[in-house]
């Protein structure tokens, strides 16, 4: 019995050591989820079309470590994002902030939609209607449509 207990203690010791005092395991999974969520928002600078979460590049792994370390130290998501943009610029963000430089990026789709809707309305108005047929034309059309 004592042996089994010792064995169980030995087995759990490793996990407990990694997570600090027992009971922190849940906190750790919460932290890990936050790390993953934040890392998915950040771009890997080495393989630029992957996020930090997806990338296994050396630098990405190290930066992910930084994210974890800083979140664990009690820093907020925004503070970690600031840390990253201070070093790598807005390029590191998958969601670029709304700035004077990025107005066209954010407003572009709405602008295109307006342009498209405008040109469609204009085109429809310019199109001649069926009611614009002369009497002779309508009787000819009626004759053609007759079975």
């Amino acid at each position: 019995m004592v042996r089994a207990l010792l064995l169980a203690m030995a087995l759990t010791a490793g996990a407990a050591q990694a997570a600090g005092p027992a009971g922190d395991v849940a906190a750790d999974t919460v932290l890990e989820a936050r790390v993953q969520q934040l890392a998915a928002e950040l771009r890997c600078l080495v393989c630029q079309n992957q996020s930090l979460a997806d990338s296994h590049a050396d630098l990405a792994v190290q930066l992910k470590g930084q994210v974890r370390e800083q979140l664990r130290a009690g820093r907020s998501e925004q503070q970690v994002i600031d840390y990253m943009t201070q070093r790598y610029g807005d390029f590191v963000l998958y969601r670029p902030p709304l700035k004077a430089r990025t107005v066209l990026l954010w407003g572009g789709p709405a602008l295109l939609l307006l342009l498209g809707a405008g040109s469609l309305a204009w085109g429809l108005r310019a199109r001649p209607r069926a009611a614009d047929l002369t009497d002779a034309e309508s009787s000819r059309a009626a004759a053609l449509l007759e079975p």
Partner: protein
Amino acid sequence: MKKRLFLPLAFFVVLAAVLGVGLSLNPREVSSPFIGRPAPAFSLPQLQDPALRLGAGELKGQVWMLNVWASWCAPCREEHPLLVSLAREQAVPIIGLNYKDDPRNAQEWLLRLGDPYKVCVIDRDGRAGIDYGVYGVPETFVIDRAGIVRFKHVGPLTQEVWTREVQPLLQQLRG
């Protein structure tokens, strides 16, 4: 009516021009947020004598160049001869930042290929590299007398970049 026929052509020309400009941009050239900002501080052991340290603050008062390199980095070998010749001409004091490298390999590399660095510091875990926003070695920074970063180049420094961009900048900063 005739004018409308040319609308698709005009649209195509504009689109081709926009996409053409887009294609000619280099996505690897990430504009550095450091330009115009103080160079991040570091205090790191020197490669030639790890008992000695060098801090970025000690370099204030002179225009200097920071070159991030590693012995495992192939493009670094490409730019190395240029750095060596710049050092020989005493064009600008070059400080090396040996990035995530084995110091023994680094020392051997400098012995074999020449040492262009006034001082080279060891950034074993790459922390200083992260502080400088390094994401692809080699990277080169020009820092002015007040310790402000004025220029950054990612990838091997070439003779062309040197004469076209760095040299005029150095002249201006010293002028």
